[in-house]
């Protein structure tokens, strides 16, 4: 029995690679397994090659593994492309009709499992595309599961297509199961121990978690110009627009999108945009406008390797500096960086309250790795979605006696002034991108200018009071203290127990709230023996943000900028040689 197994399937686009991955993912998640599902893009290796890998474990997991334990090859190329990733004792399932693989071609420790996928489908009068279902059926044998593990999900996923389709799929899965059972019953090396997770899990990528968090945060309007890696958010909003009671608009460009969102926000609808670095570059002037107009806006900034078009379908954390410094002029803003699917949901929900409360832009930094990997989120996290409670909008009835509404009143301890919404009688003001008087009318008068800048700056202090402290875990007396933000969280979380077992004293300080850097971070970091900043960029952007805020110079900065996420194995290897 093994506790942890990475299963992968590859083949041409149209072979049902994603469908097979989705089915097994659901089956594992419902049966108490920890699961993380990653997709590789068609364009990466060769046009039309699809590849999905699932890390399945009996406990909760926080990062995928690089090596593959069971590879299902629906064509010859899948083995050619991925044999380097194979674990030394891997199982390779293939159709001898594609190519008759020999051990010496893939590795001597590898178990070759030849299954006549095409033939078996034909035998049951199935469609050629259903080879994936044969493979899934056979997979059950190698994972040591009954066929019912799979059939329950088949019934669900094809429910809309009717009984006949369900039965056909089950019958095909059965064919694969039976074939493997009668020919490879001796292959028991990868039988999975029982799934131990008891609380119900939802499956989603972080883009969808951001979407769900937005809905729970009261978002009503989203304008999103398509861009990798935030595209999964678009169908999530668009397909559910009616149910969610929202408007999703595809604008002509990112500039239009962000301005539409600002317009909707001015009218009182919680609004957001989502993009990647290139699109965000186009939005930056409007981010600055949210600073002076003091209008709430949430921005999902999905990072990918730059500069410019860079490597669009790979991952990076190279936009932290850009997010923090986006926008000309001095004004406060907030930058959050979810480290996992749960934070994707909770921080996005919170972002809408923060934006409303402080009347400025809140940027949520996600990345390709988080956004396009499927994760599990405890269903209990998403429970009890209520009406939004936080607002700085006045009641229309309070405006009766106001001769001039002071939308930008400087008479405020927090720096936040009350706002009226168009349509409210006696609340008229100018939402002005020029410097303005308290009622919004344009001014170039020195005293008023200073008063307004000071008022807006005051919000920074108020924001700092609301800031979330870094999450600290691990050994109090650590030799190595990892410092991270965003998606590195899960990788470190996986590496920590491995390092502890190897005798390393390790600690993790993680920033989910990155900017403004919370008060007390300097003191927190100064106590550590050896700080190691682990980042997915070339220059150590978090380390430099920390230095700017605290004066602490983190000497050890591990950077990675090849577009591939830091792996647990890489962290463990590097850490074993550090902190002596």
């Amino acid at each position, binding site marked *: 029995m093994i506790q942890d197994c990475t299963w992968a399937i590859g083949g041409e686009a149209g072979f049902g690679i994603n469908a097979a991955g989705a089915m097994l993912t659901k089956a594992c998640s419902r049966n108490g397994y920890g699961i993380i599902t990653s997709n590789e893009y068609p364009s990466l290796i060769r046009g039309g090659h699809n590849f999905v890998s699932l890390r399945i474990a009996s406990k909760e997991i926080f990062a995928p593994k690089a090596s593959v334990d069971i590879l299902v090859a629906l064509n010859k190329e899948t083995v050619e492309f991925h044999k380097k990733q194979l674990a030394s004792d891997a199982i390779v399932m293939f159709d001898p009709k594609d190519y008759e693989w020999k051990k010496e071609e893939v590795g001597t420790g590898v178990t070759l499992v030849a299954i006549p996928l095409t033939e078996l489908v034909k035998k049951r009068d199935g469609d050629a595309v259903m080879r994936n279902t044969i493979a899934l059926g056979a997979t059950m044998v190698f994972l040591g599961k009954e066929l019912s593990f799979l059939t329950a999900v088949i019934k669900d996923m094809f429910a809309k297509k009717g009984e006949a389709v369900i039965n056909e799929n089950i019958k095909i899965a059965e064919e694969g199961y039976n074939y493997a059972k009668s020919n490879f019953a001796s292959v028991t090396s990868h039988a999975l121990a029982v799934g131990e997770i008891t609380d119900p899990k939802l499956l989603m990528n972080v883009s969808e978690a951001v979407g769900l968090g937005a809905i729970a945060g009261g978002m009503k309007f989203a304008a999103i110009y398509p861009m990798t890696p935030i595209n999964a958010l678009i169908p999530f909003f668009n397909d559910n627009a009616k149910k969610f009671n929202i408007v999703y*608009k595809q*604008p002509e460009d990112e*500039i239009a999108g962000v301005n539409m969102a*600002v317009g909707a926000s001015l009218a009182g609808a919680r609004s957001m945009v989502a993009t990647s670095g290139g699109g965000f570059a186009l939005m930056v*002037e409007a981010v600055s406008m949210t600073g002076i107009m003091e209008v709430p806006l949430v921005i999902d900034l999905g990072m990918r390797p730059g500069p410019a078009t860079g490597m669009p379908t790979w991952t990076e954390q190279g936009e932290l500096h850009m997010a923090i410094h986006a926008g000309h002029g001095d004004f406060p803003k907030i930058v959050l960086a979810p480290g996992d699917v749960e934070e994707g949901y909770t921080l996005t929900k919170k972002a809408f309250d923060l934006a409303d409360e402080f009347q400025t832009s809140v940027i949520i930094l996600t990345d390709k790795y988080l956004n396009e990997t499927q994760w599990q989120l405890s269903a209990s996290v998403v429970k009890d*979605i209520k*009406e939004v409670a936080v607002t700085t909008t006045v009641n229309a009835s309070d405006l009766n006696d106001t001769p001039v509404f002071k939308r930008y009143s400087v008479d405020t301890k927090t720096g936040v002034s009350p706002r009226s919404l168009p349509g409210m009688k006696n609340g008229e003001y*100018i939402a002005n991108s020029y410097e303005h008087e308290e009622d919004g009318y344009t001014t170039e008068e020195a005293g008023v200018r200073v008063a307004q800048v000071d008022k807006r700056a005051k919000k920074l202090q108020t924001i700092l009071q609301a800031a979330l402290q870094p999450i600290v875990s691990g050994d109090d007396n650590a030799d190595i203290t990892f410092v991270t933000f965003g998606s590195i969280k899960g990788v470190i979380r996986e590496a920590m127990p491995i390092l502890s077992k190897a005798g390393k004293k390790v600690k993790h300080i993680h920033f989910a709230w990155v900017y403004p850097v919370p008060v007390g971070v300097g003191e927190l970091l100064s106590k550590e023996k050896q700080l190691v900043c682990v980042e997915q960029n070339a220059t150590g952007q978090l380390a430099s943000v920390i230095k700017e805020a605290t004066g602490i110079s983190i000497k050890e900065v591990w950077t990675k900028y090849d577009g591939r996420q830091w792996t647990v194995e890489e962290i463990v290897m590097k850490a074993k040689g550090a902190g002596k």
Partner: protein
Amino acid sequence: MADIFTTAIKPTWCPGCGNFGIWMALKNAITNLAIPREQVAIVYGVGCHGNMRDWMHVYGVQGLHGRAIPLAQGLKLANANLQVIVVSGDGDCLGEGGNHFIHAAKRNPNITVIVHNNEVYGLTTGQASPTAELGFLTKSTPAGVVDPPFNPSTLSILAGGTFAARGFAGDIPGITDLIQKAISHKGFSVVDVLQPCVTFDKVHTYEWYRKRVQNVNITGEKLADRLAAIEVARLWGDKIPVGVFFETALPTSEEREISLENDPLYLRPIPTAEVELVVAQLK
């Protein structure tokens, strides 16, 4: 009747500026249509025209240069009860914001765009705008404009707009009528207002326009004929047609949004029960 739109700020436009006429006509139109002041949201572009915000008491939004139209669409989608009007210029909505102008026409939101069209960038002291005529001498084109001009009316008609009119800033009753019709029209309505710049343009004076503008009176089926409208709107020279060139009824951007029935968007509650159904599918 008292002017309810007055603010404490006095206009800073040059004496004789065409903006005065447009401003007066806009106030007349809102008054004649009896739209409550708080229901009017005017989104201003950046340019001399945009300075109107400071002497116009309504909900105003002064956005970034070129971006008034997307701001206006956002406002309208979030609160369809608002009367959303864009006060823009030839540089603002055909130069910097040209992409937004044609895409808004394509979408047909129920908003009105008034183009203060004077062929120059007045605020930056008189450079040529996208509507400047060939050969026109300006600060940025001392040898004359070499690129042909845009025509706001033909552009909006061709891109899918559902109301196009042209007026002359020297004819306040005329443009009052056009703005009123544009606001009353359900859909993307554009009023191109020919406006003398008394400081930076010594050619296109009030007199120059008065000699040339000619009212057209297009009615009935002809008014909904896109190609015929373009034929009229493109005329420019010794005779410059003014009036309503085109009007047709098509579903608006807001009407085409599946979730925009009933209450304005910004008042919608979170549909917790429906969200739970979506969440259940993720198990």
